[in-house]
């Protein structure tokens, strides 16, 4: 399975959703829209292997089943719509050798030094979201699963995140993102699909 580049999903299903079969080439982005509860997050979580599922998934020719789950997720991180935090301050969420890159990346996405060195509970929702993205971006992964990455962001921040995503795409990352904004998909040059009743279908007016 999964020869060549990009993300390949084949017969991915669970008791709750699917089956899904699709491909996202290297440097391509798939934007999924759909009503809440339709199964968008479920799909991303199944690809990340965070929910029980069956089916074949591979990234750049490496089958998911051949890797321990944590190594798989390291290659294609999943960033949830609601960010989770496990330490007091933001910089405690990064390994010491990642700190400099994380800091400059946060600054690029419009999060200054003060929030970065402060306690997590002082952050605004938008700052949290961008910092959660930074945690995934600094892994330089070949794939990304982003659940409403710019949901709580203001237009300026949205643009900053999108510019960064464009760079990742140019570098060959395969991205699947959930987005309610059709214009975002268009700006990123995404293939668009709609989740209806836990199944994916091509966007009608693509």
């Amino acid at each position, binding site marked *: 399975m999964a020869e060549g580049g990009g993300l390949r999903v084949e017969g991915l299903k669970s008791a709750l959703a699917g089956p899904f079969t699709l491909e996202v080439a290297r440097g391509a982005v798939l934007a999924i829209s759909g009503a809440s509860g339709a199964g968008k997050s479920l799909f991303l979580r199944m690809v*990340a*292997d*965070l*929910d*029980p599922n069956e089916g074949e998934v591979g990234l750049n020719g490496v089958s998911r089943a051949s890797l*321990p*789950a*944590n*190594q*798989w*997720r*390291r*290659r294609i*991180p*999943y*960033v*949830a719509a*609601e*960010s*989770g*935090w*496990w330490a007091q301050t933001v910089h405690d969420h990064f390994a010491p050798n990642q700190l400099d890159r994380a800091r400059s990346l946060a600054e690029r996405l419009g999060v200054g030094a003060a929030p970065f060195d402060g306690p997590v509970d002082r952050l605004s929702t938008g700052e949290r979201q961008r910092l*959660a993205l930074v*945690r*995934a971006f600094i*892994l330089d992964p070949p794939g990304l*699963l982003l659940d409403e990455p710019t949901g709580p962001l203001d237009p300026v921040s949205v643009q900053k995140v999108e510019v960064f995503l464009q760079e990742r795409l140019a570098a060959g990352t395969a991205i699947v993102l959930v987005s309610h904004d059709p214009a975002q998909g268009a700006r990123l040059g995404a293939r668009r699909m709609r989740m209806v009743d836990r199944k994916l279908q091509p966007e009608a007016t693509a």
Partner: protein
Amino acid sequence: MISLSPTDLVLASSLIALDAGVSIALRLQLHRQLSWAATRMVIQLIAVGFILRFIFALNNPLATLAIVVVMGAIAAREIAARPVRKFRGLAGLAISGATVGLATLVTAILALTTAIRPHPWYDPRYAVSLVGIILGSVLNSGSLALDGIVGGVWRERTAIEAQLGLGVDFRTATLPLLREALRRGLLPIINQMSAAGLITLPGIMTGQIIAGMDPMEAVKYQILLMFLLAGASGVAALVVAELALRRLSDTRQRLRVDRLK
């Protein structure tokens, strides 16, 4: 030894009546609960007294084992019942049962075959009493540690999944919870040991002294028991936390909160 007569006990029960009187006077609404608890206590203890007398008279290893198993099963049920969120199905009972079994067996057998060495080693007078004391500690530590893991995983589920989503392995993501649960599980025995003799006279020691034993002999028993209880607490906290964490994950290192009710 000074034997107590029923009259002595009735006299002492007037203190319960005093408590009830306070409850009624201050409208604490506790008098019903209080008298029910007191009645239960009396019935339970009298029943246990008869059962123990019977088991001691039998002096049969199977009968001893049977009562030990019943006591352990009750402790296991209590441990599994503690967390607000419980495991679906029988997993909770399986976890607490294994915990009680392992922690109690290891420490009780160690004590009965090395330090205490009654003849025969399963002499119910020693075995049943020892298991009873150990179970108290196992129940305490086991339930605190289990509650720490289950409650902690539920509370921190977003943070744990955020780490899993970034490729952090399950063990690393849940290590702070494991540490916290073990800490909680070991606190009671640490308190008990540091308070022993200063703030409280441990029950066993008091009992033996009243029953006529030389204080130094009683103290030696108490020290041995404290070590046993510390061991049992440690084993119980570790086993219950480890098994609960395993049950909350799977071979693909997912966080399986769906296995909780």
